């Protein structure tokens, strides 16, 4: 899809390689894919951006959702250039966790973040990200990392050191490089402060933006949506995520997180009435957002309170306009809480839609009924 075949999306070497693969037929695609994940020395060149890997199935660049179990369900990860829509659970307890895992994974891999919210200040959201659990073998290196960071004491130098440390690891063979893709997080601890300081992020806090007067030409979209789209578009073009203006520095991934999209706080009234005037606002927003993502090196997670939306037709349209859709249903307040079958779990996770990218079929897992539980530290899906 766009991310792969527009060329120049990956670093120079991988860009030409992927483009070449795009021109040949599928079989070569798969051969390259398996080679990349094998021990062949030519393989790891494809993985030029930290925290990404090509899909074995369709050659699409994947990023982790921050939850290895969910990655597995979605066919290896979230494809770059696509939207992951999380349908919030009733009391919005578990969906922010998935949202934060996604962002924390971006920080660990040195990706640029874009956090948009109408409820909380993005800076506060970042403070509450979960801390990564480091495996024993890479722990030493990680400590060394932090040691470097402390001695340098400068943000910029710290970032360079951080990236530099990551590079050799990407060139190692499969077991280590796959452990770099997707981490486990400790939900009870917060992410180390220095990691947040080292990361590059942009925040979009609606009440802040809306107070500053801005000339917007009349459009059928809600004001908040227009501003967010313009904000995202600016970041994508200024920092070169669109791949159109080749930059000298290393290519990176933009992770976009949008919280509670469609809720009344965004100035949208689809949650309040069934037949409202601007019921197309949300779907139009999603369409343009998807257009932006398809032409850039970015992945987006959206949480949406779908149970609040009054018109069922809107939900169906929203589903059609996003790529991956995952629904969360918690047991709190439902009859199932007392059901002995579910006593070990906190809720159900529904995989509603998996995208078909460059392919007739999609990577569907065989099991569709999945439950999740939040242990003291880990979020697990079974």
């Amino acid at each position, binding site marked *: 899809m766009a991310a792969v075949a527009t060329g120049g999306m990956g670093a120079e070497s991988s860009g030409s390689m992927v483009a070449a693969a795009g021109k040949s037929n*599928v079989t070569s695609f798969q051969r390259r894919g398996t080679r990349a994940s094998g021990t062949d020395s030519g393989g790891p060149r494809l993985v030029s951006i930290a925290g990404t890997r090509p899909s074995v199935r369709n050659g699409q660049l994947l990023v982790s959702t921050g939850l290895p179990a969910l990655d597995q369900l979605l066919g290896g990860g979230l494809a770059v250039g696509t939207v992951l829509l999380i349908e919030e659970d009733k009391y919005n307890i578990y969906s922010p966790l998935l949202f934060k895992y996604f962002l924390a994974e971006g920080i660990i891999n040195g990706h640029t973040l874009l956090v948009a919210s109408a409820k909380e200040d993005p800076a506060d959201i970042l403070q509450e990200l979960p801390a990564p659990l480091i495996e024993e073998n890479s722990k030493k290196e990680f400590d060394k990392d932090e040691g470097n960071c402390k001695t340098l004491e400068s943000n910029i130098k710290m970032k360079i050191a951080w990236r530099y440390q990551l590079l050799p690891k990407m060139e190692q063979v499969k077991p280590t490089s796959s452990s770099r893709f997707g981490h486990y997080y400790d939900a009870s601890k917060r992410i180390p402060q220095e990691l947040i300081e080292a990361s590059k992020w942009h925040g979009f806090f609606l009440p802040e933006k809306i107070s500053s007067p801005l000339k917007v030409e009349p459009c059928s979209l809600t004001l908040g949506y227009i501003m967010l789209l313009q904000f995202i578009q600016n970041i994508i073009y200024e920092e070169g995520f669109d791949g159109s203006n080749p930059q000298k520095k290393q290519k990176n991934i933009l992770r976009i997180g949008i919280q509670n999209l469609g809720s009344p706080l965004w100035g949208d009234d689809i949650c309040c009435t069934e037949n409202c005037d601007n019921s197309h606002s949300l*779907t*139009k927003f999603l369409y343009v957002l998807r*257009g932006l993502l398809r032409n850039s090196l970015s992945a987006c997670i959206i949480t949406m309170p779908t149970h609040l939306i009054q018109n069922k*037709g809107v939900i169906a349209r929203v589903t*059609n306009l996003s790529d991956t859709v995952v629904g969360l249903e918690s047991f709190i307040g439902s009859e199932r809480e007392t059901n002995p079958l579910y006593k070990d779990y906190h809720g159900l996770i529904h995989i509603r839609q998996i995208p078909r990218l460059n*392919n007739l079929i999609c990577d569907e897992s065989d099991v569709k009924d999945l439950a999740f539980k939040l242990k003291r530290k880990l979020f697990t899906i079974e």
Partner: protein
Amino acid sequence: MFTELNNLLNTAPDRAEQGKLTLLCDAKTDGSFLVNHFLSFYLKANCKVCFVALIQSFSHYNIVGQKLGVSLTTARECGQLVFLEGLKSSVDVFFQAQEEPHPLQFLRETNAGNLQPLYEFVREALKPVDNRGAAWRCPVLLVDDLSVLLSLGMGAVAVLDFIHYCRATVCWELKGNVVALVHDSGDAEDEENDILLNGLSHQSHLILRAEGLATGFCRDVHGQLRILWRRPSQPTAQRDQSLTYQYKIQDKSVSFFAKGMSPAVL
């Protein structure tokens, strides 16, 4: 192009019918494989194709097309295929004021816009060229999918009007074909979408309806396809004939079999 589907529909690229409106419809499953089938079918049939692709990017269709044995890039270069990439154009239209009307101009408009620019685009793309008029067989308009137009703020009546105009121009005037995909929202109570679907079902000559299995997810059967012919020229006994098959999508093809006759079961 899936040969098995051609056999079911009793057609082949070298004897494609003309002047028909085909409605593709999917309920609780993804019917995009049908769009890919018709795209490769008409490209192989040497037809001039105008593809209004609103839901996916060009490279997606291109890579799937290669699996089915057609190259969209080549077809576009030699003028056989006119491709309107909705996702890409939407960004251009939304962020920059266009000087001349863009086919997707309605994205910018405050009140419900109209689809006239899109129709003009289709007519311009498919109008016969004099100097090389005999090069392509018949013009074909392919839309993936019409439900997106509803999401973008169009009314069902505006979309029906658009299809009616296209039918008059492409099917009748130019003796070509129109193929369009519409999602069936099922129990989601999407009124606009139901109006569109019923309106189109009423006028189309052939309806292909892909449905998810009523019994739920299955690894070896992906869904069932209902084929409904509405041919006035046939004797009454064969008119409005409906057939149901189950299908399984594979990497490069789709296999069809009678209900309950999945190779995995037998």
